[in-house]
């Protein structure tokens, strides 16, 4: 089973919820935690894995043989991403603009371009107690994260509980992280920002055909706007975690929420029970 934890708005508590869920679930079953927020991965700060393996992730990029190049300009013409500039005596590649589509090497009439590779980040694998752990780290300065997110997701293990910590937002990196999940848990906070971005995240997950449910974090007791949203869209409001300064301080020092508040475990046990009995399949409509 693949559970994605997403939010739209950043900082609502995705990592807090995902890491607590992993810890509670690992008491009874095999769990793999996949941190797909490759721009700013933080799951390792909460779960403190021991690393076993590190692999470089590369994307295809043109390699230009200047001796064969006739500077005809075909490559720059076919490149939709403006990653190639051809001058009378020079070809320039802007590597971070390149999407690796292969148009330039396919169409070069002089056969001067061949596919090469460029590193965009690393996938690191390890374990934290009984929890398997994988995350990606995008190299600073790289613009395109989805291929790295894909590389993290290639480590998904069928037959066990896979928990994906998604990046914030609603555009391509989030889509890549959430696509193919069995269920998406949307973590929000009871503010206009939280609600606004919850609506967007819900639209994103629904567009991908992934059923979702909502968890409220930092609740001050007045979650009526979120409750209404869930009711109107017929999605379950699974649990509410109260605003708690001690939990915030624990988070600050890398201590998972359920270690600060063991009584919160019941929320995660209830969520696991909900997932187990396939509650999400019924709310998918």
């Amino acid at each position, binding site marked *: 089973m693949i559970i994605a934890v997403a*939010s*739209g*708005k*950043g*900082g*609502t508590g995705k*990592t807090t919820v995902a890491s607590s869920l992993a810890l509670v679930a690992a008491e009874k079953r095999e769990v793999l935690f996949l941190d797909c*927020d490759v*721009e*700013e991965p*933080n799951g390792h*700060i909460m779960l403190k894995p021991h690393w076993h393996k590190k692999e470089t992730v590369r994307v*295809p990029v043109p390699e230009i043989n200047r001796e064969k190049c006739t500077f005809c300009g075909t490559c720059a013409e*076919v490149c*939709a*991403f403006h990653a190639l500039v051809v001058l009378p005596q020079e070809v320039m590649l802007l590597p*971070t603009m390149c*999407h*690796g*589509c*292969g*148009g330039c090497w*396919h*169409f070069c009439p002089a056969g001067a371009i061949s596919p090469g590779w460029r590193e965009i980040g690393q996938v690191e694998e390890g374990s934290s107690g009984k929890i398997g752990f994988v995350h990606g780290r*995008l190299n*600073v*300065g*790289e*613009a*395109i*994260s989805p291929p790295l997110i894909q590389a993290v997701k290639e480590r998904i293990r069928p037959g066990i509980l896979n928990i994906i910590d998604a*990046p*914030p*937002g*609603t*555009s*391509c*990196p*989030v*889509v890549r992280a959430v696509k193919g999940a069995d269920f998406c848990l949307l973590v929000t906070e*009871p*503010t*206009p*920002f939280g609600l*606004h*971005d919850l609506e*967007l995240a819900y639209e*994103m997950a629904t*567009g*991908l055909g992934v059923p979702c449910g909502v968890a409220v974090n*930092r609740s*001050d007791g007045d979650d009526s706007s979120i409750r209404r949203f869930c009711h109107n869209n017929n999605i379950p409001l699974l649990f509410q975690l109260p*605003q708690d*300064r001690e939990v*915030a*301080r624990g*988070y*600050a*020092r*890398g201590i998972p929420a359920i270690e600060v508040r063991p009584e919160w475990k019941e929320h995660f046990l209830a969520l696991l029970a909900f997932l187990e009995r396939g509650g999400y399949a019924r709310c998918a409509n």
Partner: protein
Amino acid sequence: MRELVVLSGKGGTGKTTVCGNLAVLASNKVMADCDVDAANLYLLLDPVLKSSSPFYGLKKASINREKCMGCNLCLHLCRYDAIRPGFVVDPVLCEGCAICYHACPCGAVEMIEHLAGHLFLSDTRYGYLVHARLGIAEDNSGKLVAAVRKEARRLAEEEKKELIITDGPPGIGCPAISCLSGADLVLVVAEPTFSGSHDLERVLELAKHFGCRAAVCINKWDLEPENSHALESLCSRHSVPVVGYLPYDESVMEAVKSGRPVIQECSGSMKKGILALWGKLKTLLELR
């Protein structure tokens, strides 16, 4: 004219709250919201929409089945697995590279305009706000960020404003990169947590990578003063000044809940912190 870009790396550290307060304090400026995935600044500024324009991303492929002879060349060439059986293009997976368009021997592939979002201009009691909404699941966030910044710049020039305040996206990827290139100052809003420190370092590296001057504001600094000291040492290692300290203040959530910039109703120490931050930013930006 100067441009101040507010970034954070980690989400939810308080970029929009800080921007909302700067919007109240700064006169003679244009506001821009470049968090095009999840734009929130307008929720604080009570805007009146003045105009809206469509934003087109890269054209996407579409296959005309009448012309297609089923040679499979497009399927073979597409690196994004965007061509489904039956020669139907998946618009989410298609990145618009057009390799199929150029390669198709029967001219069956057309590249069609693709509406990827909207660009908005609104008036607020604190001045103009340029904002946008990227369509769900779109991949043109960097391009839309550039369009928002360009519009803000045009407007600021036309209206002879001395400052653009840009609320940026979280992360360090495509939209963040598009947001900071050419900015006069990047203000990074950081929080005193282990995650906040980890993420701050990556944003500071990003700013350095692109040759941008940076400054840091520590939000909720008193939540974990020890971690705040660690953020200070991190900043000094990167030769970046800490220009603001904002306290952990529950009235911030109240203010956000009621959709108002916090400075209008917060406690004394919060107000002082915001005023001091704005004073330092003015100096760094050489504003009057």
